[in-house]
């Protein structure tokens, strides 16, 4: 027994040292790239859009790096490992969503905008109200997303470095390590953005996408090898060791749960599933940090190519998550996973440790593979938070400072300086908020960011591009209507109060029964955009003609 513990401790410390070394190598490489990128960053176009010099493939990789967050890598694998099939719903929603971006948004946005989402929204409107609304929405969505990632990073570090309650690491206990991680992640993202701008951030995301794909591919092959490449036997073993039988392979264990004898709750649960489904599929094309990626390529056709690559990369990755999740269920088992983390976020790293043990010679192999996957997880978080910080600081500088405060009179140099300062401020605010929220359950914030993007930003974007009559009032109503309704509904939902897994489990002001507001707030956002438009007399056919012609032909594109 004591021998076993000693072996485990030795393996644990090897993994810990290796994780830290690999992570530091990643940080060193990305910082070097960032410094190199900063030398190439001279104009505002360089800072905001990476000089529009990336190829379709490079941008496709960067989109993947920007999009595949820790929530999708660790989160989806964890949900599948613990709840089986239902985690797959996320993968599907997150992927199908890219068709909205491909067919309706990417190319038209690239042709008619410059640096931010608001460039397109404000194209034919009064600048100040629309840009203010767009900046508010961009910053809100990005901060929600940032908080979820940073708090997640803090929660992970203790688990990935194996800091158990009562033990310390470099003089820090688990709580101190959590805060140190949040500060470190925050500081790095600030450096990437302020120093490297879009160019540096893009390369960080490309490197991360490569590492994540390689790591996930390796694990997928190993999982399938255990089951002799027989998918059915993998699923069978996963179902058996989950203790839930075939139900583990069917929808309904986590979303749309049927509560026996409670028809009302069953109804709400099913509505909640539909709500989540619609928010996932419509949210992506309204996420500001994704939209600004389309500006980093020279033409609309390159933007199309980058989305095609992104669909290929992201789709392949989500297929891997299926093997990772079911593999963890079969090979690690839900008991061992929940013993580490109740939400299942450590399922993928634990699976890595198990695979390493089986394939690469016992504890050393186990520690090595665990370290690689843990370092990849941190790289994943870093690349995503950098993209979010860039999107919000770009909007603050380009939309709010240059076009609202300075009414378009700011010089390029001033604008970029303000963008750098904004990144610093947003980074500092996120660090503080994350430390404050570190012990709260904020995983729902990712789904909320998607819901806000789908309810406020997407209606405004689609109306702008396709509806001649749309005007300033409509744009402002759509953005605020969607944003406010989504946030208010979530505030009064069970994810914030009134339940055991709520953000505030000891309070109860909940009255809205669904965890995801999309089913109500998305139609409401579209409705507000329509109502605001028809209540205002403003109408500019000539500007719409310019927008429509430019968006479809690329004439006058930046």
């Amino acid at each position, binding site marked *: 027994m004591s021998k076993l513990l000693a072996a485990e401790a030795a393996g644990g410390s090897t993994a810990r040292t290796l994780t830290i070394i690999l992570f530091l190598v990643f940080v060193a490489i990305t910082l070097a790239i960032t410094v190199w990128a900063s030398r190439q960053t001279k104009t505002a176009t360089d800072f905001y859009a990476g000089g529009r010099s990336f190829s379709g493939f490079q941008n496709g990789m960067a989109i993947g790096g920007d999009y595949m967050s820790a929530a999708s890598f660790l989160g989806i694998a964890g949900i599948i490992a613990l709840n089986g*099939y239902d985690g*797959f*719903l996320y*993968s*599907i*929603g997150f*992927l*199908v969503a*890219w*068709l*909205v971006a*491909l*067919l*309706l948004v990417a190319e038209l946005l690239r042709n008619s905008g410059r640096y931010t989402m608001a460039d397109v929204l404000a194209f034919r409107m009064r600048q100040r109200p629309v840009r203010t609304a767009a900046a508010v929405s961009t910053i809100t969505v990005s901060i929600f997303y940032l908080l979820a990632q940073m708090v997640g990073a803090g929660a992970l570090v203790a688990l990935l470095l194996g800091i158990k309650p009562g033990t310390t690491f470099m003089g820090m206990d688990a709580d101190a390590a959590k805060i140190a991680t949040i500060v470190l992640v925050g500081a790095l993202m600030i450096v990437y953005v302020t120093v490297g701008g879009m160019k540096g951030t893009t390369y960080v995301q490309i490197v991360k996408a490569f590492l994540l794909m390689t790591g996930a591919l390796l694990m997928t092959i190993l999982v399938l090898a255990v089951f002799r490449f027989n*998918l*059915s*036997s993998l*699923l*069978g073993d996963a*179902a058996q060791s989950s203790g839930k039988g*075939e*139900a583990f*392979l*069917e*929808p*309904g264990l986590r*979303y*749309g749960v*049927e509560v026996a004898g409670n028809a009302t709750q069953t109804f709400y649960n*099913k509505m909640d*599933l*539909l709500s989540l*489904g*619609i928010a996932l*599929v419509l949210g992506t094309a309204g996420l500001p940090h994704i939209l600004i990626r389309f500006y980093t390529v020279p033409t609309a*056709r390159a933007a*199309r*190519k980058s*989305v*095609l690559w992104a*669909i*290929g990369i992201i*789709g392949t990755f*989500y*297929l891997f998550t299926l093997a990772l999740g079911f593999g963890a269920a079969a090979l690690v088992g839900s008991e061992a996973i929940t013993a580490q983390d109740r939400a299942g976020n450590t399922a993928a790293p634990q699976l890595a440790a198990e695979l390493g043990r089986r394939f690469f010679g016992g504890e050393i192999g186990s520690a090595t593979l665990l370290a690689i996957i843990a370092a990849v997880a941190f790289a994943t978080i870093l690349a995503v938070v950098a993209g979010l910080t860039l999107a919000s600081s770009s909007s603050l500088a380009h939309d709010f400072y240059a076009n609202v405060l300075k009414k378009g009179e700011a010089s390029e140099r001033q604008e970029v300086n303000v963008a750098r300062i904004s990144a610093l401020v947003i980074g500092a605010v996120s660090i503080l908020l994350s430390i404050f929220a570190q012990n709260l359950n904020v995983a729902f914030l990712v789904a909320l960011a998607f819901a806000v993007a789908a309810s406020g930003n997407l209606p405004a974007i689609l109306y702008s591009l396709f509806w001649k009559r749309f005007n300033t009032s409509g744009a402002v109503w759509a953005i605020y209507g969607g944003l406010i309704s989504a946030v208010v509904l979530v505030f009064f939902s069970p994810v914030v109060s009134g339940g055991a897994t709520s953000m505030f489990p000891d309070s109860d002001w909940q009255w809205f029964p669904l965890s995801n507001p999309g089913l109500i707030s998305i139609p409401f956002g579209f409705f507000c955009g329509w109502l605001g438009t028809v209540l205002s007399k403003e109408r500019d*056919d*000539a*500007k*719409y*003609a*310019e927008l*429509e*012609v*430019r968006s*479809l*032909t*690329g*004439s*006058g594109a930046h």
Partner: protein
Amino acid sequence: MSTEARDTAPTETPEDRYLAMQRSPEFGNLRKAFRGFVFPMTVAFFVWYALYVILSAYARDFMSIRIGDSHINVALIFGLLQFVSTFLIAWFYSRYASRKVDPLADTIHAELEETRSE
């Protein structure tokens, strides 16, 4: 065009040019080629995806039918088909756009550049 031709229409502003272009039949063709593909395709994939989500919520018995005596069921096949359809639509769109939309857009783009540089 000659300098004389330009001088005869000195009042034409860029706005007028875009308005005229937007109302021209050739731009109408471009708009039709683009919208004629993306609108129906958006409706199609959305309905197909919604069907999947609704079946996951309300047709559990159907989704849990197993294929033969394997552990693969309808729910998994349906989910994987969403991947297949997404990849196919993306590929189909890129083929369609480069054949039917891009040439029209290029012609109009070139025309607009010509009038601008005069």
